[in-house]
């Protein structure tokens, strides 16, 4: 445990700023031996800079100790629903870091970056094939930025049709990720929430009733956040198009259907993918990700800039679509992530992607049957990539909340599932094992969940106190928000 609690100290109380000592340094800087130019006038210069002073070894030990206080997919099973935490192939990191890719300047002429650009072009073509949507921009840095791009594309298309003034609403299911309504609002639309029907699918009657000339788009997550397929979505797409609106697809859960059905064939107009989910690029504790946006021919002129194109002279270039919504970033997106995703696609091929979706769905169903009877299953039917249990039985009978169950799972060596989402499931426990977990790992996870369900009846207090074996216990989140301490300078002033 020495790495987890070095010297038994209150490790979190001492930041790098509180370690080392004046005059120590982790790296040196070459001296300038040429002719010295006077510095600018003093009023333009800084007079103080407070940063840690650590030797190289101290700095390395500090961050190594921090890494030991983290849990990643390389540490163990990580069934965080809707996040598709699967194993991240190491070769993807290796190829993305090759010096030729690393050194490319974002403003370099296309001729100097053909290796990067051709890789992006082939990724673009692969994503178009896999989604059945012919036009793709790789620019969005994450799913939420892809969503913003997609909704702004719809905005611009409506503007060109002269209908933007009247079409001010976007319909969003109540099971959607929070980014969907937040994006719709950011793009200037009002959000109308669509309830989920008893079988876990979109409430068709409400959609039909709401669809009128004030609707710009319907945002649908497919498969949805309950792990279920929206049956008849291809018919709903027809209704939406008949009403003059667009069907936006949140492709966060693409992992479940890769190689088996395509958004374009189903009638989706525009979809974003999360390459840090389905295409297994590492999540990095909160990014970088990539959220490419894929669309129909009709919406192609509105794609964000840049788009990767092969020109007639055989040179691959970045271009601006004719009626583009514009740039989303100063440069071209999270290119390093895109190279990793390309490597993943090439390592798998079509058969591999089909094997991914097949095994991901089988693993989720295997977990579903292993836990059946121990936890409530509000939508009790076969699922796709994930299964959403409810801890409401444990709450009613033993006063144990989903929160407690999640924390106790840490003591069994697992990362907890997503909790309290989707919002429509009481005490939700949303579990997505992904295809990269072997059956034994799923069985061990299920055994731990069963043991916790039994413990909830026998010893609820232990669950309330969990985790007991983590590097740190439950933290006072209310205090953190009530009296925010957000930087070392404040923490120091307090002491």
């Amino acid at each position, binding site marked *: 445990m020495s790495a987890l609690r070095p010297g038994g100290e209150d490790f979190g109380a001492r930041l790098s700023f509180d370690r080392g000592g004046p005059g120590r*340094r*982790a*790296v040196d*800087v070459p001296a*300038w031996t040429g002719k010295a*130019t006077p510095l600018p006038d003093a009023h333009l210069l800084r007079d103080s*800079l407070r*940063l840690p002073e*650590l030797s190289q070894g101290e*700095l390395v030990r500090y961050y190594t100790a*921090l*890494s030991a206080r*983290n*849990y990643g*997919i390389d540490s163990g099973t*990580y069934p965080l629903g809707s996040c598709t935490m699967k194993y991240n192939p190491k070769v993807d*990191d290796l*190829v993305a870091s090759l010096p030729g890719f*690393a*050194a490319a300047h974002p403003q370099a002429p296309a001729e100097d*970056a053909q290796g990067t650009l051709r890789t992006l072009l082939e990724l673009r073509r692969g994503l178009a094939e896999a989604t059945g949507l012919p036009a793709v921009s790789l620019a969005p*840095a*994450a799913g*939420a930025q892809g*969503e913003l791009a997609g909704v702004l594309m719809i905005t611009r298309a409506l503007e060109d049709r002269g209908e933007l003034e009247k079409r001010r609403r976007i319909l969003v299911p109540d099971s959607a*990720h929070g*980014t969907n309504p*937040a*994006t719709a609002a*950011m793009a*200037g639309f009002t*959000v109308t929430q669509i309830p989920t029907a008893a079988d876990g699918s979109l409430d068709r009657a409400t959609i039909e009733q709401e669809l009128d000339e004030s609707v710009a788009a319907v945002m649908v997550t497919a498969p949805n956040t309950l792990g279920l*397929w929206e049956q008849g979505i291809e018919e709903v797409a027809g209704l939406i198009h008949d009403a003059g609106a667009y069907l936006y697809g949140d492709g966060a859960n693409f992992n479940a259907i890769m190689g*088996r059905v395509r958004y374009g064939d189903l009638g989706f107009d525009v979809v974003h993918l*999360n390459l840090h989910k389905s295409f297994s690029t590492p*999540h*990095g*504790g*909160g*990014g*970088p990700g990539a959220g490419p946006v894929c669309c129909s021919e009709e919406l192609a002129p509105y794609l964000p800039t840049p788009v990767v194109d092969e020109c007639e002279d055989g040179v691959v270039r970045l271009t601006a679509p004719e009626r583009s919504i*514009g740039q*989303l*970033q*100063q*440069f071209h*997106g999270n290119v390093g*992530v895109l190279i990793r995703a390309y490597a993943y696609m090439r390592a798998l*091929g*079509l058969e591999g992607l*089909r094997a*991914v979706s097949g*095994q991901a769905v*089988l693993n989720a169903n*295997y977990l579903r049957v292993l836990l059946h009877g121990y936890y409530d299953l509000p939508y009790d039917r*076969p699922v796709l990539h994930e299964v959403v249990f409810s801890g409401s039985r444990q709450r009613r009978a033993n006063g144990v909340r989903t929160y407690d169950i999640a924390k106790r799972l840490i003591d069994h060596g697992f990362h907890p599932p997503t909790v309290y989402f989707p919002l429509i499931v009481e005490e939700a426990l949303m579990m997505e094992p992904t*295809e990269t977990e072997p*059956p034994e790992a799923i069985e061990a996870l299920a055994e731990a969940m069963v043991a916790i369900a039994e413990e909830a009846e026998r010893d609820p207090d232990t669950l309330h106190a969990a985790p007991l074996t983590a590097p740190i*216990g439950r933290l006072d989140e209310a205090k953190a928000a009530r009296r925010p*301490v957000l930087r070392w300078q404040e923490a120091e002033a307090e002491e």
Partner: protein
Amino acid sequence: MASPAPGGAPHPYIPATEADRARMLERVGVDDLDALFADLPAAMRDPTIDLPPALTEPELIALLEERAGENAGASQPNFLGAGAYRRSIPAVAAHLTSRSEFVTAYTPYQPEISQGTLQSAFEYQSVVCELTGMNVSNTGLYDVASATAEACLLATRATRRGAVALLEPIHPGTIEVVRTYTRGAGLRVDILTSVDAVSEEHACLVVQQPDFLGAIVDLEPLAEAAHASGVLLVTVADPFALGLLRSPGDAGADIVTGEGRDLAGAPAFGGPSLGLFAARTPFMRQMPGRIVGRTQELHEPPEGGEPRTGYVLTLQAREQFIRRERATSNVSTAQSLIALAFTITVQALGPQGLREAAELCYQRAHDAAARIAALPGYETPDRGPWFQEFLVRGPVPTAELAQRLRERGIGPGLDVSSRVEPEAQDALLFAVTEATPDAHVDALVEALAAIEADA
């Protein structure tokens, strides 16, 4: 092409063998995998998809090594800057950032097993606040331009005004992204060539430091002019230059954004990038993105003693997953790992090292500019104090000068001759940093002299 063993696992990334699958299918109660997809529309199932065949790992490495080799090499002299600068990155930054407990973690929703990510993010916020002179930093946004767009949206929320002003010279990409992001809210974007045009209609004045053509900006008079009209000052600052320059907060800025990529690693064609975003305390609850706060354990540790210190995501009532359509931004996944690399680089350099590196950059750039200005036929138009980028006018038109440098194996600076600033007329914008090898500067000076001799 791979050759999986009959009955074996379908791929190295997928462990279940045929026997495992058969056992699992039986337990689930279906005959085959296809049965699990029965809800998908039959007519559209299993379409023809044209993807290239799978590659084994050695084949994949060979292919991408070949591709990487098709880019111009790292050893080729290159003087492009304009928003992306080659820096000397300490080896410890890449080493520590590649630890898989950091790399393969998700967003830290479970703080008990995410203290590595959370405490590192608190370090990042502390470093960003120190450099920028702000009170609150988030954990980072996508890149400088989208962070600046978010700053404009925050300013319009805070002031309830319907227009934003951007002061030239500013990166054209920043202008583009601000336009994209503010379209939904129906905001007016004014591009100013003088601070005199700022008015009470504007929510904020956005100023780049150093500016797009390299000059160091005296922020204080701009802050005063903006504040006189109730306008917030947003500064888009290069965090590396802030090792030397006065902090924007000290000069009166209200919000500071910046690009962190260059202190995190190689340019990598622009991304992954890192958008710095920090503000004064009054804007804390209007901030976009994740924020980490310090707190204590709720209970004493099992082995006794005082509750220990830990870190959590906080002020989450601003965020999309709680507030949904009333959130301050839709941002979720951003650039955590790049923020970690940025933090380690800055902390490895420390207060002395960062200042020394920034001064070295300043000295090397000024020395290179002086050598070029001394060549017959060349001038470096003067725009006052500058940091690492300078304008060069040569004996031939810019396009020709750039082309002739390329023919000599040298990547020229950006052609800015079509800009409105008089000093940019007929000029290329060159960047020289602390990481530009001496031999590259020598090669540039030699090539420029030879071009003049031919002209």
